[in-house]
Each structure stands twice: as C-alpha cells, then as structure tokens.
C-alpha cells in the first residue's frame, strides 16, 4: 500500500516538474581550452535570457579533445549545441550521424565562427634562441613543442600554419613538405593534445618554442609562468576558426531549438564579444576588436577554404593515413 502511494507521489512529481518548468537545460559540447570562456559566456547568456523570457536556463558543458567530442555526439551524446575546434569535426557529425544539415556552416555569420584565433609562438623569457618567424623553427638545435596532428585538432592548425609559411616562403609544395619535415625533426615530444603540449613546454621545461593557439599562449603566459615566457607573433599564420552549430535533431527532440539558437546568436553580441576578447579569442565585432587591438596584433592569415580548399580536402591530403604528415615520418613512402 505504501509503495503504491510512493509511486503515485513520484508520478505526480514527475508530471508536475515540466509544468513548473520555467527552467531549460542545454548541453554545450565543446573542445578543451574553452572551459573558462564558456563559463563566462553562460553566466551572461543566462542573465539575458531571464530578462527576456523570464525562464531560467542552465547550460551544461562538456569538454575534451575536439575529435573525441564529435565522436561522442555521433555515438549519441545529446548535445543541443556543439562548439568545436574545427569545421571538419562538425562536418563529421553532419556526415556520419546526419544530425544537422551538411550546409550548417552557412547558417550563422562569419562561417559560423563568432570568434577566431591564430597560431603563435611561446618562447622562453628573453627569447634565447632568437625565434622570430617560422624559418627559425627549422634551425639545428631548436627544439619545437607541438602536439600530434593525428590526435589533436588544434595541432592540425599548427601544421597548416607551418605548411602555409613554407609554401609562401619557398614557393612549391615539395619545398613546403621539406620545410615541415625539418620542423617536425626538431620536435622531441608529440603530445596527444594541445594542453599536453603546453604542460610539456611550460611545466616540464622541454623545448625552446611552443606552437600554440593565441588564446592558449596568452593563458600559459598569464597563468603558468608570469614573466617566464614571451609570445612571438610570426610574419604569417593561419586563420583558426572554431565553429559553433545547433544540432537540429537533438534540439527538436528536446524542444530547445529557440533557446539553443538564441544562445549561439548571443555569442555575436557586443557583450559576449567582450567576454570572448577577455578570454584571449579574437572578436568579430569591429568595435570590440578595436578596443582590444593591442592584445591581438594584425597578421597575414591563411584561410583553410581559400588556401587549402576546405577541411575535407585538407584532412585527406595532410592527415589521413599515408597523407603528408605520415610521409614526413616515413620518408615519402605511402602506407602509414
């Protein structure tokens, strides 16, 4: 008897819960270094959403390597929105699990990237090895720290920035390949993720230069060793665009489309752009960008779409099995 009463109570409670629900939950599946950024963004968005609709919104975050996160979503992690390190990973979600349309990247401004970044160098205080540009990384005796592009999305940007420099400075793809081969010959440790490389460089004291995302370099500079490092901005680099997208099938199932879309649109507002700039990512909003210009020096940036023909092509050419990255270790012979 008592058990029936208890069951009835539970049933009423579960029925009543949605009725009271002025409370929505979103899951944002993101990549590794955006923890601090989205914590700040979520607080800002929750306040604004409350003001606009009177509803409470709680945004849960999941962080990890970009490729691993994409795989979790493909395998059934119910992300309302994804905010990953490269378009290729969201393409994979669209392609393999069909959770959003293939043309997702055209749905929001700036290729669905409300912020961007680039690849810079972090060197030890005083720059003892005199590193000023990509060409200095292939000099004998210079130890370079960068993660493995086969396991780290962030590392692919590093590789492509180096390749872009090689192609521009030396003229041909063959010369560019030779350049990156020399560069990776100077790499003593290939960590599996970008954070791992930062730790290897900053905490373990390995290497003379860390190739890193600008936001990660700024974070390392501020958090890990105030005054122990210097950021060096190379002559050219790559436009790193970490995109965002609503996962259609999931928001339609959860009934959270409106709030999920509002969340991503919020990222483009001046308030959010300010948070973005404070966290070391380059803002899109011109007014905010102007205010933070000192922190983000202007560099000539290669673009994946214009200079490399898009991510799918880039992935197949450089990072697939037997691709150029494998070739620089196997000495040109294909087959891993």
């Amino acid at each position, binding site marked *: 008897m008592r058990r029936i009463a208890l069951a009835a109570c539970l049933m009423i409670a579960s029925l009543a819960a949605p009725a009271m629900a002025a409370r929505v939950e979103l899951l944002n599946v993101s990549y590794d270094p955006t923890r601090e950024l989205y914590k700040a963004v979520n607080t800002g968005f929750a306040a604004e959403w409350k003001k606009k609709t009177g509803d409470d919104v709680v945004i849960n975050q999941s962080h990890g390597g970009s490729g691993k996160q994409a795989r979790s979503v493909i395998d059934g992690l119910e992300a309302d929105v994804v905010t990953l390190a490269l378009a290729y990973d969201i393409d994979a979600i669209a392609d393999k699990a069909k959770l959003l349309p293939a043309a997702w990247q055209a749905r929001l401004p700036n290729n669905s990237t409300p912020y961007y970044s680039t690849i810079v160098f972090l060197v030890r205080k005083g720059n003892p090895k005199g590193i000023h540009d990509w060409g200095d990384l292939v000099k004998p005796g210079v130890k370079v720290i960068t993660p493995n592009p*086969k396991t780290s999305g962030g590392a692919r940007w590093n590789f492509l920035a180096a390749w872009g420099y090689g192609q521009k400075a030396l003229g041909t793809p063959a010369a560019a390949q030779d350049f990156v081969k020399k560069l990776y010959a100077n790499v003593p440790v290939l960590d599996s993720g970008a954070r791992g490389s930062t730790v290897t460089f900053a905490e373990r004291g390995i290497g003379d230069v860390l190739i890193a995302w600008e936001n990660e370099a700024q974070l390392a500079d501020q958090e890990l060793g105030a005054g122990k490092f210097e950021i060096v901005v190379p002559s050219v680099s790559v436009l790193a665009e970490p995109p965002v997208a609503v996962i259609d099938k999931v928001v339609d199932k959860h009934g959270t489309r409106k709030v999920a879309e509002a969340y991503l649109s919020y990222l483009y507002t001046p308030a959010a752009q300010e948070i973005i700039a404070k966290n070391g990512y380059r803002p899109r909003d011109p007014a905010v960008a102007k205010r933070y210009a000192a922190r983000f020096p202007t560099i000539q940036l290669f673009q994946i779409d214009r200079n490399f023909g898009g991510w799918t092509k880039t992935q197949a050419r450089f990072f697939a099995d037997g691709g150029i990255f494998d070739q620089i270790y196997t000495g040109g012979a294909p087959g*891993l």
Partner: protein
Amino acid sequence: MTIYMNEVAAGFASRITAVAPMPTSRQVWGVASSNPSRPRSIIPGFGLTMGITLFAVSVIVLIPLSAVFIKAAGMTGAQFAATALSRRALDAYKLSFGAAAAAAALNAVFGLVTAWVLVRYELPGKRIISALVDLPFALPTAVAGIALTALYAPNGWIGRWLAPQGITIAYTPLGVVIALVFVGLPFVVRTVEPVLADLGGDVEEAAATLGASRFQTFRRVVLPAIGPALLTGCALAFARAVGEYGSVIFIAGNMPFKSEIAPLLIIVQLEQYNVAGATAIAATMLVISFALLLVINLAQGWQRRRRSA
C-alpha cells in the same frame, strides 16, 4: 613434505583455474557426459553455476570482443594489412609488448621481494606499506602518468640528476617501461602474497634441517611452490601493461617508430573516424595477447604437473 606441498597446490588451484578456465571446464564437461552415474557432488548446482559462468563470460568478455572482430572483418585483407601490419604499427606492437614484458620481468623481481617482506617480517608501518602497494590499482592512470613524467622529465626531481649523465627517461621507451612497472606491481605482490603466507616458515625450516643452503631452500622449495602464482601475477601485470594507455601516453613522447604505443595508434584511427582501422589494430593486439596468455597458462599447467608427478 610432499603431502603438505600438494595441499598448498590445492590451496591456490582455484586461483589458477580462474586464469585458465578452458582445460578445467572441458574436463568437467567430459566427465559429466561420459559418466551419468557419477556420484553427486557435495555442492549442488553445477548446471546452474555453469550456466551463469557461460552467460557472464559471454556478456562481459566474448560479446564485446567479438564485436571487435566483426568490425574488423568488414575490411579487405589488403586494407587490414595496410593498417594493422604497417611498419609503424609493427614498431608500435614491438614497443607495447616489449615494454610490457620488460615491466613484467622487473615486477617479478620487485613484486616477489615486496611480497616476501610483507609476509615474512613484522615491521612497523607494514599495513601502510601494504596499502601503498594497492595504490596503483586505485589511482587514475592519467594521474600516475603525469606524476611520473613530472619526476623523470629532465627538470624533474629524478630526471635532473640523470640528465647530466645523458640518461633520459621521460619521452623515451624507458619511460614507458617505468610507467608499466608502476601499474603492474600490485598484480605480482597480491598474487604471490597469499601463497607465500600459506607456505609457512616451517617448510623452509624443514629444508634447513635436511641440510639445504639458503639458496637451495629458495631454489628447490620456495620457488617451485610459488612459481605458478608468480607466473600468474606476471601474466596479469603483462596483460594490464599491454593495454595501458592513460599513464603511458604522458611519458612516452609518442614519436612515430620510436616511442609510439599500439593503443595510441588505435586512438589515431578513431580520430580519423576510421573505426574499422582502429578495430584492425585492436584485433591484432588481442590475437597476440591471447596467444601469449595461452602459452603462459600452458606453462603453468606443465609446471603443476611436473611438481605433482
């Protein structure tokens, strides 16, 4: 003394059957089917427990593992070979299995000595040492990897003394072995310890009164008795080390052809959304591991037979 030793053997026979279930179960099945008038066992429920055993082994071990082979079977032979038998993969297997074997061998020595001390001597803080031995079980392996890397990196507490001598441990295959020794130690200690305790000091005393030297006592009396348990412990430590990822990945350096472990190649394949490629490497590792564990089990059986003969 022989009788006593047989009792000891019976005492840990259960542990050995747990590791080598196949021959024992086949034996039992054979008896059950060929001799229906067999006297009933004292403990009832063979049918039920055997059913549960088969169910558990299937659900927990066989079905997940067969999924690996089914996924890999979707590839053509050439695709399989290109991924699982490439030079880079072969180097990775060599490192994974070689380092695991080296770590198991080191653990055989250190684990045996540790177990010996814990069983044979009373010393202050013994309980604490005993608890410490288990820590590698409990610690998330990534934590172990980060801690070991911090110690052995050229600027770490230990690494900074070795670096001037030209010895680098972190980011080399040597670092891999160190990490695997760390995760494998409890297996050896915990399998040898109860057998050593069962053996008791009186056997050694008996050997001494019969004129055996200390070394002879160890070689002819103690070692044969604890041999199967030691082998089991090493096999467990080895098996664990082959598949270890979390602790190794931080200390390995992950350089292709040099310090890249096989589980990393599986992750690399997964990062490319190439599940078939990942399972191809996984299946190859499984086959090698199974073959090695089978050999170890056969060696145990041989050891046991030789001793009871």
